[in-house]
């Protein structure tokens, strides 16, 4: 076995995942008010939560605010976190609640200021289309394709039935495709 696999954990699916040996320890320390441990958890989750916020809110500035709000609430509440789910799942619920409050606003996606003037990348076209969809469509597509949650995980996060998740994702994909074609003329 090549040395490059040292320190990595092979999951059953064959995918290579980073070890999460200290996640539960960090969570336990954060629950006791250890700010450094919470900061380490922030480092572990910030990009995924920010991406969730970006896809839900439609712009970088607001996504930064949502990220801040999510971790502010998490820090306040971490001492009450009982560990019935993983810290990541618990954090998701907070982020989703934070994002839902703003998701009712149908704001067009605004590319990052750093990207203005450049050719619009595909991801921005996708986000522009996403930002035009209904909030529940935006949410399920984000959880499914951005956060890679399974149908069952989405059902758990949203307190929906599995059937409702599947139907909503199906309809959301159709709506996304129609909206994308109306925005861009065709599918690349």
């Amino acid at each position, binding site marked *: 076995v090549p040395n490059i696999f040292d320190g990595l954990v092979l999951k059953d699916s064959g995918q290579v995942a980073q070890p999460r040996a200290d996640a539960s320890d960090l969570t336990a320390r954060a629950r006791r008010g250890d700010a450094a441990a919470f900061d380490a958890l922030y480092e572990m989750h910030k990009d995924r939560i920010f991406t969730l916020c*970006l896809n839900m809110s439609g712009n970088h500035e607001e996504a930064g605010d949502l990220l801040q709000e999510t971790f502010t609430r998490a820090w306040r509440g971490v001492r009450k976190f009982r560990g019935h789910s993983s810290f990541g799942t618990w954090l998701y619920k907070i982020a989703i609640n934070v994002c839902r409050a703003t998701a009712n606003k149908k704001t067009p996606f605004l590319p990052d200021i750093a990207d203005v003037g450049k050719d619009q990348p595909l991801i921005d076209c996708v986000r522009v289309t996403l930002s035009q969809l209904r909030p529940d469509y935006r949410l399920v597509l984000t959880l499914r394709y951005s956060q890679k949650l399974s149908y069952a995980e989405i059902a758990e996060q949203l307190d929906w039935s599995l059937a409702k998740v599947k139907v909503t994702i199906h309809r959301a994909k159709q709506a996304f*495709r129609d909206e994308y074609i109306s925005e861009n003329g065709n599918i690349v």
Partner: protein
Amino acid sequence: MKCHEVLDKLMDFTDEELATDEAALIEQHLAKCNACREELAALNEAEGLLGSLAILENAPEITRHWMLSPKKGHRSRYLWQTAGVMMIGFIVLLLLHPWSKSSIDNSSENRLSQQLATTPEGIVSLGTQEDNIAPIAKPEISQASAKVAVQDKSYNLAATAEAIPDKTQLVAEPEKIVLEPEPPDGIILILGEPEEPESFDYAMQTTLPDGTQRITSSEIKRDAEGRPVEIVLVSKEIAPSENERVNGG
């Protein structure tokens, strides 16, 4: 298989979640139905585009206020340590001050409360005792010893409390409170952590000079979100004669 049945199962079909025979039926239908093939192509195209959402964005720098402010646990511990000191002082006053002596009749209950202020940030800060304690005429040092029961353990407590005149404030320095045996986490054990309401429940039993047994216990009242808003102390006295009767003496 009809078109609407195929469309209902198209997502499971693309996710390869159908049984082999059911998937075969859909494949047969797709082979001869142009409309359903187009629908499948549309979903696959959408799937391909949405796949780009998997790209993680780098989070911007945000204010990590948990690193800037004093550690939450320490701040909370400090606050609740202070709360513990104040409550012990409160009890000491209850035990020794003439004002409180007259306020409790034999076998009666006396309820005193300590309001807590909760800030918008959810940080609990202590109110003052101004509402609860009558002005004290002169500086005095009160000393008390008592047996404190915390959950299943009991501790001998000795405290010195200083009453500051006019300010109606009772101060007891943490180092002047002695607990034997020393609890593993210090004085905080008396009140526990705000998130663990069960550890707030404690009782103090004291024998007064005339032999009266005084039992003081506390409970925390919380708002709808579970934040502590009020500490209520309940004192009950059992007269010596009654005490002897209870103990069979």
